[in-house]
């Protein structure tokens, strides 16, 4: 009973341990070295980027084999390592692109990168959880930091509203999650994913209570992923939160929650998949349509991207609802491409600024193709990819999802999903129309940092040329998704 964790246990959680120690150094450093001064902000950003790079280093240098640690509370395998690396990479990019926005909007607080780092730590804990308790603690660590970040712009009413809305609904979702987990514990006597997967859940004896608890757990994760019908908070929070935080919300926590959902569905509840298959399928289709129709009339680009995120995560749900290897692979491919194209789109939005005012209305992008052709071309590529135009990356991602759906024998589902995809193409193309065909009275030249230009260029180049190395990436996804399918 009194044995301490051994060294191999510590090496499993080395990235998390490193990041938390880095955070503990960060706090006194921020407090005692002028954390709220304008000229110090870039130092803190660099400091946190170095922390994330260090975490990435320990993650990639560590053991890649599947193993359990800390009395089976923590797990690691290739899939987890891939998703963690994606999260760290995306977070570094978001920190870089939010620099300029923070100086425009006077967000001179060192807690901004600090809280981002805390939420990253929460996501890492979430992803490597092998137990519902670990998952819950990771989820709360992540969410608490995100609530505060949403309300970070203290002088803005909308930002405070966004923070409060997110907090109240998020607390409700956490309550659902705990209720579901406590029911599950009452039924089976365990909260460990691996123990649950070893026939603790007998497919022949499924009680109503078990179905209820699984629905509660899935809906709380669906809330975090802003899946319809739990999407109500998304447009308001995306609009109200500072834009750089919106970028962060739209990209990074989604990857973590998808990874967690994969682990819950494909490891803990795989024996009783007939309970959740249809549930996840319906949630996926519903979000595709809610996202497609909700975005049609949006004037604000942040609200539009909120609906776009809803429908994009819907496709991932569609793929996950297949319950097989193909679904897992295609959802991994989809989340990767979604993350990279969202990085591009948000880099564009964060560069759009005229006289120190951020341009958030779609109509203000009129005539952009003449005044700023570079930005117009990059955003055009990214949006065409999101609309699913071949041969761009977004098309390949959607193609693989629908191919997996059809191969698994759900032709009708695939047709409905494709209809949703066609509807959502309208509003992506509408932005391109505004940029290329509409005239504007006043033109402006976007002056942005070189780093942002490079990020925008690289992400659109990746989306454009994805088809050349698509085979390698898909093989890689197959390789890592084998970690989870037993």
């Amino acid at each position, binding site marked *: *009973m*009194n*044995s*301490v*964790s051994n060294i191999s246990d510590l090496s499993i*959680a080395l990235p998390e341990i490193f990041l*938390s120690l880095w*955070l503990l150094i960060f*706090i006194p450093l921020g407090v005692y070295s002028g954390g*709220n001064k304008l000229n110090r902000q870039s130092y803190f950003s660099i400091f946190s980027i170095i922390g994330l790079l260090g975490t990435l280093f320990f993650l990639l240098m560590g053991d890649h084999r599947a193993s359990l640690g*800390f*009395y089976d*509370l*923590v797990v690691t395998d290739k899939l987890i390592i891939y998703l963690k690396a994606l999260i760290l990479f995306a977070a570094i990019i978001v920190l870089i692109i939010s620099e300029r926005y923070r100086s425009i909007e006077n967000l001179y*607080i060192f*807690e901004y990168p*600090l*809280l981002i780092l*805390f939420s990253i*730590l929460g996501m890492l*804990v979430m992803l490597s959880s092998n137990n519902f*308790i*670990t998952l819950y*603690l*990771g989820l*709360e*660590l992540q969410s*608490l*930091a995100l*609530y*505060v970040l949403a*309300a*970070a712009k*203290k002088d803005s009413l909308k930002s405070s509203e966004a*923070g409060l809305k997110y907090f109240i609904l998020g607390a409700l979702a956490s309550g659902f999650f705990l209720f579901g987990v406590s029911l599950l*514990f*009452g*039924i*089976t*006597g*365990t909260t460990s994913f691996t123990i649950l997967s070893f026939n603790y859940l007998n497919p022949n004896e499924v009680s109503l209570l078990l179905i209820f608890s699984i629905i509660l757990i899935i809906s709380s994760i669906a809330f975090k992923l802003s899946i319809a019908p739990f999407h109500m908070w998304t447009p308001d929070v995306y609009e109200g939160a500072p834009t750089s935080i919106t970028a962060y919300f739209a990209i990074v926590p989604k990857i973590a929650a998808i990874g967690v959902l994969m682990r819950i569905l494909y490891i803990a509840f795989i024996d009783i998949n007939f309970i959740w298959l249809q549930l996840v399928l319906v949630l996926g289709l519903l979000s595709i349509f809610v996202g497609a129709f909700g975005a049609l009339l949006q004037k604000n680009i942040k609200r539009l991207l909120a609906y776009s995120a809803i429908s994009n995560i819907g496709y991932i749900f569609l793929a996950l609802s297949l319950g097989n290897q193909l679904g897992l692979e295609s959802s991994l491919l989809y989340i990767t491409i979604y993350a990279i194209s969202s990085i591009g789109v948000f880099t564009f939005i964060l560069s759009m600024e005229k006289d120190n005012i951020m341009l958030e209305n779609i109509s203000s992008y009129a005539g952009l193709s003449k005044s700023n052709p570079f930005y117009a071309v990059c955003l055009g590529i990214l949006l065409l990819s999101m609309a699913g135009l071949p041969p761009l990356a977004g098309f390949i991602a959607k193609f693989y999802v629908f191919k997996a759906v059809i191969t698994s024998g759900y032709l009708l589902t695939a047709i409905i999903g494709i209809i949703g995809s066609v509807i959502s193409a309208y509003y992506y193309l509408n932005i391109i129309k505004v940029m290329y065909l509409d005239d504007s009275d006043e033109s402006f030249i976007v002056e942005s940092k070189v780093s942002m230009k490079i990020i925008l260029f690289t992400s659109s180049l990746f989306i454009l040329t994805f088809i050349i190395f698509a085979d390698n990436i898909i093989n890689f996804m197959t390789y890592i998704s084998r970690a989870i399918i037993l």
Partner: protein
Amino acid sequence: MLPVFFYLFSIIAIFSAIMVITTKNPVHSVFFLILTFFNSTGLFVLMGAEFLAMLLLVVYVGAVAVLFLFVIMMLNIDFSSLRAGMIKNAPLGLLIGAVLLGEIIFSFIGMKYGISEIPGNELFVKLSEIENTRALGNVIYTDYIYLFQCAGLILLVAMIGAIVLTHRRRENVKKQDAVKQTLRDKSDSIEVSKVEIGKGV
């Protein structure tokens, strides 16, 4: 011997719980609430749950009840207006009370007793073997060290978040800076200038 203390603690607990909702003065209410907590602590000690007992004392009496007292004294709420709807709301209150009572009764009827009925009962520590503070300490710092540290980080984030959201750096606040005061000297505080007659400075 034990039943005497059990009845003593329970009777005082029930009596003071009734007094919490019937007494006129809200400050007295809070004091009766504290008395209720103390007696519940006694009941926990009788059951051998000394850790829970101390937790109740520290958290509820030490923090929550004192917080209530602060709120009552700070906010200056007009309690007579709150009591005005007492008769009107009584049926609703009784209904909710009846539903809760019914739930308790039904769950007692449906409950299966005995340690073998609890799923995962092999996890439980034998009662006589080890006192429960030590048992908790044994698992918190070994088996659940990862979770314990995570919980600590969550509390840290909550603290930082509260500071971020409420702390405002106010401009033009005149603070006393002792170092600055003692370090100032004549040359940078007094300027001697020759004023010509009839011109001013």
